[in-house]
């Protein structure tokens, strides 16, 4: 029996590229929407040209990067030159039969192409248009551009990560591309429900940088209501809730407790670390019991929270002497068995190969990709009782579905499609056609 899809029948015209936008439409695809990814080979999606995730045995090319393949599952690939009159006319026809248009260009690109929101609205009065520019489409700096790292810096996200008196540690990936993508999905689904209720479409003008600021709310209010400066001694306190020897101040993560830190575990490798947190004196005593009552730990200095906060250096040193005798998974099991909060620091390899929970939940199923072969793919973090979110189809090869989409959605004849290839509308005349496209044109 085929289970229903939550977004069956919803068509999304997807102009997004790089990471934030494609990560958004990946989720719309997993809910069952039809995603038509618009590309042009002369302006390749950066994820198609970045070589760092191409398997060593695969010949480099736009279909080879693993990161593109994982980010763009559940989509159809259409190549079309929007900068030609014929290409623009067909894009406009696609808009008239779509529910959603989504893009993450800088603020003026769509208007410059002649398909700004005013034009879209004329073509399809109830269209939902989600734009995902770094600074949004209004305001004096709307022309500024961001990538994840600069959006994180400007939003305050970078500042709140690191050790005191050191450079910011920031985020070791484009957190606001992932999260900007999540906001893109949220905007689409919210506007879609609104349209279901009112019959009206709208323009949702998302700003990636601004989204990051909304995730610093406690720090924001501490500044606006209490006037507390974030540039202060002992902040940010690394993995701790407070830095010893500095004036007590909020950490914006949760309650001020100790221990609350990362500790080395057996093996000594780059990711042989665990974290332990005790939220009460009772949890601390349980940890002391578990460590076998070492003499240092029974010192009265550590019995109460105030003492543990003050003497964190000695306490953390003592805890680490114990954690280094265990591997991070043994340690996690021992701690959790008695109710002590502990977890392994997990690398990507750990998550894919060693995490028993992700394995039990089926997070990394395999999917066949026409070039890359059978590979694991990142799954979905929720289980629906009626409309399962799915990993359905591999990322499109560039232009893989151009003939199919044009036939099925706009009713173009094979002859018209061949003419579009001949005149450079569907593929640059200067570039050779892939065999899979020639095959589709026979």
């Amino acid at each position: 029996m085929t289970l229903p899809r939550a977004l069956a029948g919803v068509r999304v015209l997807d102009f997004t590229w790089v990471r934030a936008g494609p990560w958004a439409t990946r989720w719309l695809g997993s809910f069952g929407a039809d995603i038509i990814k618009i590309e042009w080979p002369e302006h390749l999606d950066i994820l198609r040209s970045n070589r760092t995730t191409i398997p060593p045995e695969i010949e480099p090319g736009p279909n080879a990067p693993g990161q593109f393949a994982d980010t763009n599952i559940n989509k159809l690939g259409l190549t079309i030159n929007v900068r030609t009159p014929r290409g623009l006319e067909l894009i406009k026809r696609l808009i008239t039969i779509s529910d959603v248009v989504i893009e993450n260009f800088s603020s003026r690109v769509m208007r410059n192409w002649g398909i700004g929101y005013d034009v879209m609205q004329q073509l399809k009065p109830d269209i939902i248009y989600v734009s995902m520019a770094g600074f949004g489409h209004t305001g004096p700096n709307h022309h500024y551009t961001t990538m994840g790292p600069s959006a994180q810096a400007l939003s305050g996200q970078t500042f709140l990560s690191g050790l005191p008196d050191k450079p910011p540690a920031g985020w070791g990936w484009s957190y606001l591309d992932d999260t900007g993508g999540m906001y893109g999905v949220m905007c689409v689904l919210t506007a879609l429900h609104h349209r279901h209720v009112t019959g009206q479409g709208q323009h949702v003008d998302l700003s990636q940088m601004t989204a990051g600021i909304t995730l610093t709310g406690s720090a924001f209010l501490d500044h606006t209501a209490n006037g507390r400066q974030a540039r202060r001694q002992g902040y940010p306190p690394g993995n701790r809730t407070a830095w010893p020897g500095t004036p007590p101040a909020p950490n914006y993560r949760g309650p001020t407790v100790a221990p609350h830190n990362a500790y080395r575990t057996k093996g000594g490798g780059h990711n042989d670390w665990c974290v332990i947190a005790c939220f009460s004196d009772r949890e601390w005593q349980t940890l002391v019991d578990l460590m076998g009552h070492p003499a240092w730990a029974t010192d009265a200095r550590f019995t109460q929270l105030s003492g543990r906060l003050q003497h964190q250096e000695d306490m953390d040193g003592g805890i680490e002497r114990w954690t280094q005798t265990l591997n991070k998974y043994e340690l996690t099991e021992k701690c959790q068995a008695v109710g002590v909060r502990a977890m392994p620091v997990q690398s990507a390899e750990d998550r894919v190969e060693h995490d028993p929970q992700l394995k039990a939940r089926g997070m990394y199923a395999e999917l066949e990709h026409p070039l890359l072969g059978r590979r694991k793919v990142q799954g979905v973090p929720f289980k629906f009782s009626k409309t399962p979110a799915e990993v359905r189809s591999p990322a499109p090869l560039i232009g893989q579905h151009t003939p199919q989409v044009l036939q099925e959605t706009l009713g173009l004849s094979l002859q018209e499609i061949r003419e579009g290839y001949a005149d450079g509308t569907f593929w640059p005349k200067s570039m050779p056609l892939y065999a899979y496209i020639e095959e589709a044109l026979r």
Partner: protein
Amino acid sequence: MTDGTNAVTADRLPGPLTGLRVLELADEKGQFCAKLMADLGADVVKIEPPGGQQTRAVGPFLDDIPHRERSLSFWHYNTSKRGITLNPETVEGKELFRRLVTTADVLLETFPPGYMPSLGLGYDELSPLNPRLIMCSLTPFGQTGPWRDYQTSDLLQLAAGGQMGCCGYDPEDVPDAPPIAPGGGNAWHIGSHFAYIAIMAAVCYRDVSGEGQYIDASVHEACALTTEGAVPTYIYTGNVVQRHTGRAAAVEKSEPTQFITRDRAWLNTTRSGFNLTAARLRRLAEWMDQYGLAQDLLDEKYQSTATIQANVPHIAAALEHFFANIPLEDAWRGGQEIGMPWGAIRSMAEIVHDPHLGERGFFVEVEHPEVGRSFTYPGPAALYNRSPWRISRRAPLIGEHNYEVFCGELGLSKADLAILAESGAV
């Protein structure tokens, strides 16, 4: 394009989730998800234990005076919601909760797996009362699996989820540095974002089909999905990324992207090596020359890609010297004006004065009549031109809407409510 006229008209329109009623039985793990819905117009009824939820005991507090009605953290995460108190472990509390469920579109809960069913309030019991109900359980590890009952915290989720494995320092900056968990409570944000999209997908399905359903959402899985290229790098190349200061964890060592400025603040240039072409270098050098700091970079020899590549360390040193001698504000805005996607590493002090954010209506004044003041809250991530985001009220006081909901909506008398309050049911 959202033009000014639209924006003014839109101010009076209802939010996009108007008419959607959400029951929130969520602590720090899920209260942000319900805030996102409430600020977009949903009628979120936050159900706290009698006396208030423990999230009210988390600082910072207004004027640093700890009090359950002064937690700024609680204030931020609970805007636009109504608040009632109810103990679902009492017979009367259960009955009131069941009656509320019949009025709800969405129920979001973050209790340990098995707790709601143990009270007779699992999805299987609630769905017959309201087949259109969408119930989402957002828990640290999901409803099944060997870790489902494990204790957790924001720090623990960021360790297991892979965030810490990517964040930290180059040994040159901090020898033997630990992996770093970024602050701000982001494990709960990540979980709440995924819960939001799951719930809204189910709402959209219900709009069409009329059917509710149950969603089992896992914070751990949400975090495990939020490390960009780390997992694909492993899957496709077998390599594991290493932590670097303030830039992408990577298999190979890369050039720095953070530079100190004259005012002892930090600039982030996004890409290692500045991504320099001859044209970009020329624009940079002309700008640096305005400060008399271009050194030899205006020399014609740099108009060749080969010369640029042969002189990367020299160019990087000239740029580093340039940044160290100009203020942060000049550095990032100057870069943006010549097309560089650069950013200042800002703290709140700089953010609250940003005119761009001001013009986009980001600084929102929220009245708190009890303290006779209003406070500036962060505004919307996105502007909806036909159904605006707004904070409709400050976070609820403990049990603030008990009378309105239990008497006004469920028809209890004041005397009934008093008895229930005295017995600890509400």
